[in-house]
């Protein structure tokens, strides 16, 4: 067997690997492609298109929902559902409006407290689901009411005040972030220039995705979550620790929702226990997950896809602003786009040869 032949086979195998990879991630690829097209059109049409200002604004509007979509992805991967993500976000938002003041150390401590509160809420969800053996959808419906109650207790009326520097640093470009912190020669350092125009919130989103989600997905617990979503019985018989996977999934969801709530508080500079907002964030997080290519039946998909799902949802509403669609028609178009997006995924039904395959 010559070297040339084996390299050729290797190349062919790499090629088919790529095809396989694309096919396995068809939902993600579709979501990314759709997002690129829609977002490119948006910038072409926008009077200030391709500018940092627009990027920063968009990125800020995407961040919290993207976090909730990531949060929602983890339980959905195990064929569960977390209806409390919006409530956890709202609760952390209200906690942040009390804690993010004072000196740098106090603020840092306050942030840790916020994230801990979100994580704890997620952990409690996990406990109710795992040890209480209550269906996730109804368990999180109930715990969500409790978290909203806590949020209302902390902030009966909207208000609170957050550190202004923090708001400025987190919701603008990296250059403003650096100059607020006084690092990298106030963001004017030469090496810093190529990335100085990045929106800070976008970088934060990337960081959370790469530092938390990607390693988690590769861990045993992460793989167990996928296994539980595909076939819980088989996962159990394979000796995987199902209880730990479920607990971790809900805890991680709580953490992501906490990050979302923290940013929402920083972005709006106040806390607001807004029940309708919590509900609409929860429902939009489910929509983002589905558009991002994760199956509600569990086992396939991932949080990266959900981020793009959120981007698509949001960019569609961005487009309404610049394409002169009457504001009164916007909710209708949003609804139709959502309905069309989820129905498109159903076209596979037409290809099913054996009707029994419909009843998974």
């Amino acid at each position, binding site marked *: 067997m010559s070297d040339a032949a084996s390299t050729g086979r290797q190349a062919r195998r790499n090629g088919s690997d790529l095809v396989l990879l694309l096919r396995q991630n068809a939902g993600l690829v579709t979501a990314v492609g759709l997002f690129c097209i829609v977002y490119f059109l948006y910038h072409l049409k926008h009077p200030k298109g391709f500018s940092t200002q627009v990027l920063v604004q968009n990125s800020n509007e995407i961040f919290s929902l993207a976090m909730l979509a990531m949060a929602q992805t983890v339980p959905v991967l195990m064929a569960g559902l977390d209806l409390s993500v919006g409530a956890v976000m709202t609760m952390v938002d209200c906690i942040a409006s009390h804690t993010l003041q004072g000196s740098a150390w106090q603020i840092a401590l306050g942030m840790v407290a916020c994230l801990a509160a979100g994580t704890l809420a997620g952990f409690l969800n996990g406990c109710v689901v795992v040890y209480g053996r209550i269906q996730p959808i109804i*368990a999180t419906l109930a715990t969500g009411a409790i978290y909203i*109650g806590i949020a209302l207790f902390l902030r009966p009326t909207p208000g609170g005040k957050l550190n202004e520097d923090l708001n400025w640093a987190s919701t603008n470009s990296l250059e403003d972030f650096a100059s607020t912190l006084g690092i990298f020669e106030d963001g004017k350092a030469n090496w810093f220039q190529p990335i100085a125009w990045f929106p800070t919130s976008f970088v934060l989103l990337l960081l959370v995705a790469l530092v938390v989600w990607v390693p988690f997905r590769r861990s045993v617990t992460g793989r167990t979550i996928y296994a539980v979503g595909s076939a819980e019985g088989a996962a159990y018989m394979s000796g995987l620790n199902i209880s730990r996977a479920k607990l971790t999934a809900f805890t991680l969801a709580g953490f992501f929702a906490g990050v979302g709530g923290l940013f929402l508080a920083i972005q709006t500079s106040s806390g607001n226990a807004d029940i309708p907002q919590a509900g609409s964030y929860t429902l939009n997080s489910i*929509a983002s997950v589905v558009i991002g290519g994760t199956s509600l039946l569990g086992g396939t998909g991932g949080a990266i896809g959900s981020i793009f799902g959120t981007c698509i949802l949001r960019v569609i509403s961005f487009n309404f602003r610049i394409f002169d669609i009457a504001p009164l028609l916007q*909710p209708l178009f949003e*609804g*139709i786009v959502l309905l069309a997006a989820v*129905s498109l995924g159903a076209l596979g039904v037409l290809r099913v040869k054996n009707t029994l395959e419909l*009843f998974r």
Partner: protein
Amino acid sequence: MSTPALKTSIIPLSLFQLPRDDRPIAIAALFIVAILVAGTSYTLWKFGSAPLLSPNYLMQQLQVGSFLGVVAAGMMVVILLGHIDLSVPWTLAAAAMMATAVGGAWAIPAGLGVGLLVGIINGIGVAYLRVPSMIFTLGVNAVMRGLMVWHTGGFAPQTAATDLMRFLAAERSYGIPHAIFVWAAVSVVVIVILQRTALGRYVYAIGNKEAAAYLAGVATRRVILTAFVLCSLTTSVAGVLLAGYSTKAYQGMGDAYLLPAIAAVVIGGTNILGGRGRYLGTLVGVILIVLLNSVLSIMEMPEAGRQIIYGLVIISMLLVYGRGERVMS
């Protein structure tokens, strides 16, 4: 398998010897009594009166509760299938808005027509396109909201409910609000469908295992479509009633009915995964939620405390009887 025997030996209550589907109903009914006792002792201690036990007050609470009861009746049929209908809020509001907008003799048919249409769309999406009901009905809800915002211009519509709607929802005969009669009528229809017709049997069968029902010759897709139509129809009945009760339709009037309806169905012992549950349980669940709400408002509990108690009650009820099986194979 030894758990029931164990429980009867520790707790010598006949409660645990009841059939599996009746136990939740008995426990929820006991909880209702507990709420009434706690609420009454609170009012006796605080005001020296017992409004919770006066028939007039109870009738008034049940009148308000009948809207939730009608929604929960339809929701239960969909949950029995193992599906869920999240389009309730704006189906309810759309039915109310259309009914008041059309007015006259055609007001109620127009409202019910909205329900019929939404139900058919939901059914096609879930049964024929096989989109998960959770996400499809969510999309339909968004579309209905968009249509209504477009229709009303985002303001509360200026149209008023007709006299017939007022008669059905807000007036009384012999001290009994008419809304309770409507609730009773809807309940009888749902009970007959679930227990006395093939359709009802099919609903339970599909909730247990759709593939098995299909292989047994059930036209499962048509049954799912019918169930979603039924759910949207009852929702639109609730919308018409609520518009009659408050003399007008308004934005977001259905928002407060989705989650309590699901909670009422589940507290009543219906399995959220479908296939199991009795209508009597849903009835008890609705009454429980309505009474809990009224006791909390008598206690002048702030919204924060209400939400927390609401969540804790659902969780503790389910911990008593709603626990799933551990997956072992």
